[in-house]
């Protein structure tokens, strides 16, 4: 231990970082359901506007990225689960690549590694909050009194108000991290990140279809749900053709095109998630016991798409805030190569990317540059599919669920493949698992990217696909608990759930 590792630098912080206790005894099924529902409800309750921020007047450049991370503009879920997810991906891939020295066989190292991820999540929330506040992101855009670039020229917001926003966002991010930890520690079902993404994706889809809330636009009042808006149009408009046309093409809120594309992507993903290859396995202890071990096509579930979009989200936050903060510096020429944002002229609710490197890997609608707007869909598809597939290739090895890990798990349970010798199990599994995880990542990301850039879904398709995949992962957790641990015997749910 002569060298100093990054992990050792974390040690002093370990005693001050809040840590949810592991349950003393196994939490019973019903209690887990209660904890999961309560945590998800509290998570959704955090969607309150931050003090001093008018969340209906925020101009939000990240709207197409945020829905899949359970985040909402101008609220305490400004970042959603993004900081936790990003730090988890970042450190777990670094450790998996052995760029970060962690000895996972030692418990103390594992704990340090966990604390490192938690501290990173806290710090990311803090840093993003500072960046957003100082790029005037939280300044409501009111075109009568303020300039497009924010309120710098007219009213200078007080430092106290700014720091209050930073404190509130940092605390709420810490709460989200602890809520994630609560479910991860076994008090509830599923990994916390995926549970909150599912809850939030469900509300996003429901709101964009049947949302009853109204907001005021230049054309009068509009509903947030696409179907509700269609009904409103049919009642108020004189021409039915125009009413239907408008419901399919409106720019503020969700329109019917986006909703239908998202539903199509939903079913495509659902279909793919049911594709699996079944390997016959048998017990080495009990004669004649043979069953199948399914390897799903979407072996990595929602994670490849989530990983790609977390990179995009990170780049967009950093790029956007840098271009805003450095707007008056002399290096702005170089900084705007990262990306260039312009205010959406029609809705005034979002900044559209229309130039720079980030434009090429975004689902932005159009650009003033014709060449760029022609090649943009291809570069976006290419980027999303490549990064996701690469992730699908490496992730099984970083999560101990590649062929070797599965073979070890099967051996521990005294299970072997039918017609294979013990030594050949890992090799045989590898022939199925690695192509499955790679092509699964490719297909799922291609669906999302295609729906996003061709359907102009503004994140609805992304959140729907990620939501259904995350939900299925959690269902797996619930069903395996229900069937394997005898939870059915003493649960209230045994009255209406199949016990066997």
């Amino acid at each position, binding site marked *: 231990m002569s060298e100093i590792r990054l992990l050792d630098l974390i040690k002093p912080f370990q*005693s001050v970082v*809040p840590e949810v206790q592991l349950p003393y005894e196994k939490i019973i099924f019903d209690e887990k359901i209660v904890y999961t529902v309560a945590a998800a409800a509290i998570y959704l309750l955090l969607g309150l506007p931050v003090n001093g921020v008018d969340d209906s007047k925020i101009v939000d450049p990240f709207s197409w990225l945020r829905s899949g991370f359970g985040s909402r503009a101008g609220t305490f879920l400004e970042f959603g689960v993004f900081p936790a997810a990003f730090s988890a991906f970042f450190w777990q891939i670094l450790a998996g690549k052995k760029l970060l020295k962690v000895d996972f066989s030692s418990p103390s190292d594992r704990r340090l590694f966990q604390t490192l991820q938690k501290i990173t999540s806290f710090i990311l929330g803090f840093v993003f909050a500072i960046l957003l506040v100082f790029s005037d992101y939280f300044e409501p855009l009111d075109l009568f009194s303020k300039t497009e670039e924010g309120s710098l020229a007219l009213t200078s917001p007080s430092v106290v108000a700014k720091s209050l926003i930073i404190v509130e966002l940092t605390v709420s991010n810490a709460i989200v991290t602890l809520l994630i930890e609560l479910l991860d520690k076994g008090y509830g079902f599923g990994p916390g990140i995926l549970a909150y993404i599912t809850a939030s994706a469900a509300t996003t889809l429901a709101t964009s279809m049947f949302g009853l809330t109204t907001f005021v636009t230049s054309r009068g009042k509009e509903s947030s749900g696409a179907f509700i808006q269609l009904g409103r149009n049919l009642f108020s408009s004189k021409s039915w053709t125009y009413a239907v046309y408008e419901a399919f093409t409106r720019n503020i809120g969700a329109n019917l095109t986006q909703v239908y594309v998202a539903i199509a992507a939903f079913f495509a993903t659902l279909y793919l998630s049911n594709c699996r290859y079944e390997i016959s396995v048998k017990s080495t202890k009990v004669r004649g016991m043979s069953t199948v071990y399914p390897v799903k096509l979407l072996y990595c579930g929602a994670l490849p798409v989530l990983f790609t979009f977390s990179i995009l989200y990170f780049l967009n936050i950093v790029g956007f805030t840098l271009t805003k903060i450095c707007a008056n510096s002399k290096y702005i020429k170089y900084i705007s190569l990262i990306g260039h944002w312009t205010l959406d002229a029609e809705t005034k609710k979002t900044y559209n990317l229309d130039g720079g490197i980030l434009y090429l890997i975004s689902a932005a609608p159009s650009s003033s540059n014709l060449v760029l707007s022609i090649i943009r869909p291809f570069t976006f598809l290419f980027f999303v599919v490549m990064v996701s597939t690469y992730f699908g290739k490496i992730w099984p090895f970083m999560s101990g669920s590649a062929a070797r890990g599965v073979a070890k798990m099967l051996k521990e349970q005294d299970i072997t493949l039918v017609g294979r010798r013990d030594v050949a199990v890992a090799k045989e599994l590898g022939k199925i698992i690695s192509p499955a995880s790679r092509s699964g990542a490719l297909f799922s990301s291609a669906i999302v990217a295609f729906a996003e850039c061709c359907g102009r879904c503004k994140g609805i398709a992304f959140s729907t696909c990620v939501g259904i995949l995350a939900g299925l992962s959690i269902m797996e957790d619930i069903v395996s608990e229900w069937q394997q641990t005898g939870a059915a015997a003493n649960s209230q749910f045994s009255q209406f759930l199949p016990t066997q």
Partner: protein
Amino acid sequence: MSSSIPGGAKTLSKRRANKENKLRQQKLNKPNSSRAAGAGGSSSSMLKIYTDEADGFKIDPLVVLIFAVAFIFSVVVLHVISKLTGKIF
């Protein structure tokens, strides 16, 4: 009288090569994630972070929930105050 070392390869260079190979193998076989090491952690389709109990400032799960609700409540109160007084600070 030359006495060879009992067991293993005969020549020194081969012994060293064997040892190096063994070390390399060990390094290769080292787990690179907590699930690979036999503890809980991320699996193929689940991104888990916090599965071990670190020696931190321990809190009960209910405290987390109550703290979150208290935070939400205090924010609501702040909103009400700012509505009443017109603005904050």
